[in-house]
């Protein structure tokens, strides 16, 4: 974290039925100006947590601190937190300018000042010429920008975004990721972004909080979450992965015994005791094809039978098996050559590309 905590969630719990906790003890400290993504599958508690920050849900226990002050008892309309909703929630009976001016009107800001700020906000999202249109006359991406302008125009302390790109098609989604990130940096606002899309989380965030079952499994930078997942769930949810189940043969020497495969080398000084049940995570792109002499530089070398090939153009996912275990290998598109189903090839990976997780 780059600065002192600006927004803090302390042991936050939400239960709707008094039996199961939808949010089960969330602790996060967010610095001013930071972009944090809540990433997780549906029902993992990420949206509920966001709604508690916005004030639309009351926490069952725990506290929410903004600049050292608890805001749990503050009504949503007094929190000064901007929010972009999943389906934008633009007011259909108001023009773009009226929509963006709404929060200023609610704050009794004088008309000429409000007009100026609405224009600035529309400039920021590149929609100045659309101010007299109604939302229904705009495309999905434009509506999204209006929603963003409306959530920023009153200079909120925090910006919340609830799966804001879910309704857009793929190209527009990528464009808006860049756009949202640019605007967030330009304004310097603290932002929390909720999504189940790991690509969005990877490309936009300063840090990612991976939610599962009401808890945060890991909170770290995108690269760390991808390269050094701390749980099997995180490893499986973020990015493609191979899990090899086995037991630690020697933690000190970095050897894990995999059922059906034999021993694989992992970084020495692993986290669990000898004999403990673990899973070794190997990313498909870390496994390389290596026949003959090239094999010798790899710590783990196996024979692999090709069972299926999925071509993505830039890369190819090769599915097959090694010693009865299913394995996925990602190769550069041009490296595949004449690879055919049923073919036996040599593969391998380096010890440091294997990550030992609790099994």
């Amino acid at each position, binding site marked *: 974290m780059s600065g002192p905590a600006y927004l803090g969630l302390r042991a936050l719990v939400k239960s709707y039925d008094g039996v199961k906790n939808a949010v089960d003890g969330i602790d996060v400290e967010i610095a001013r100006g930071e972009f944090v993504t809540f990433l997780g599958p549906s029902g993992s508690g990420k949206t509920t947590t966001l709604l508690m920050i*916005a*004030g*639309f849900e009351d926490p069952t226990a725990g506290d929410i601190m903004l600049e050292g002050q608890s805001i749990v008892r503050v*009504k*949503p*309309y*007094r*929190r*000064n*937190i*901007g*929010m972009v*909703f*999943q*389906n934008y*929630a*633009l*007011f*259909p*009976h108001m023009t773009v300018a009226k929509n963006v001016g*709404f*929060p200023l*009107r*609610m*704050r009794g800001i004088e008309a000429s000042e409000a007009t100026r700020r609405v224009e600035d906000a529309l400039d920021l999202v590149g929609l100045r010429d659309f101010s007299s249109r109604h939302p229904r006359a705009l495309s999905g991406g434009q509506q999204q920008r209006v929603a963003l302008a*409306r*959530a920023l125009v*009153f200079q909120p302390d925090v910006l*919340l975004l609830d799966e804001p790109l879910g309704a857009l098609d793929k190209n527009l989604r990528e464009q808006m990721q860049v756009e949202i990130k640019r605007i967030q940096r330009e304004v310097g606002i603290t932002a929390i972004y909720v999504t189940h899309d790991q690509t969005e989380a990877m490309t936009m965030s300063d840090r990612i909080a991976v939610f599962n079952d009401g808890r945060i499994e890991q909170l770290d930078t995108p690269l760390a979450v991808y390269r050094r997942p701390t749980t099997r769930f995180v490893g499986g949810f973020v990015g493609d992965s191979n899990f090899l189940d086995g037991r630690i043969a020697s933690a000190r020497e970095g050897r894990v015994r995999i059922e059906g495969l034999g021993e694989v080398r992992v970084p020495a000084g692993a986290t669990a005791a000898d004999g403990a049940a673990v899973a070794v995570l190997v990313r498909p792109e870390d496994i390389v094809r290596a026949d003959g002499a090239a094999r010798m530089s790899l710590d783990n070398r196996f024979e692999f039978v090709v069972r299926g090939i999925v071509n993505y153009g830039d890369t190819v996912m090769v599915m097959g098996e090694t010693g009865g275990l299913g394995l996925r290998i990602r190769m550069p598109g041009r490296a595949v050559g004449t690879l055919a189903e049923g073919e036996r090839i040599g593969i391998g990976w380096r010890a440091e590309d294997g990550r030992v997780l609790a099994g």
Partner: protein
Amino acid sequence: MARPDVRAWLLVGPATLFIFLLFVAPLGEMLWRSVGGADFTLKHYETFFSTPLYIRVLGHTFWTAFVVTLICLLLGYPVAFVIARYGGKLGGLLLLVVAMSMWTSFLVRAYAWMVILGNRGPVVALLNALGDPNPKVLFTTFAATIGLVHLLLPYMVMAIYAVMARIDPAHLRAAASLGATPGSAFRHVYLPLSLPGVVNGCVLVFIICLGFYVTPVLLGGPQDHLIAGLIGEQIEELLNWGLAAAMSMVLLVATLGVLAIYNAVVGLDKLWG
């Protein structure tokens, strides 16, 4: 939208035939009679427009329709709001109650009001106990208005509810997150979004009320007769078909006038939600 072809006409054929034979044709005959048939005359219309009583009844009909619509709106809007906003068991129950009163015959309901408001009814008994020895409740404008409101309230609730049910709750959250108190959010967001339902409900109730016959006759006094009652009287008691037909045409034109205004402002296709 696809262009209607032969199959489309076949689908609407039976209903079109039914309406033509039993509605358009009789209506044409009424129009025919109102101008004296083959001996063309406008004397029935002259009689209508030159008789103060008839003009008064027409005015009273519009006034009653206006008052009933207003009361239905004031009573119906909050009910529709609760059903749409809170839903669940309470909403379902309220919706059932509203629908049930729509399913009960209006004649039965008019007689029920006669019992409730009549001389042996609870209302009179209560007023007696409060010191009014001889209250006049039944056969008054008050009774007629209550009866009409009771009959037409479900239409108002349904029309408003149909629009409210489609208002995305995210709009209210958005308003709150932007700094609107619950009152402001209602005034600036919810109310304008529910307005189409209000207009629909008002037009529906107003138009049904314009042509209402039985309830004011049964519950109101002679001064509460609406124009439909007057038409019935002309036919049943005076066999004055010409004048009755002319009155019907006036009522029809008035109703179409209201619909025309609605169509110009909102669009007729929106009337049923």
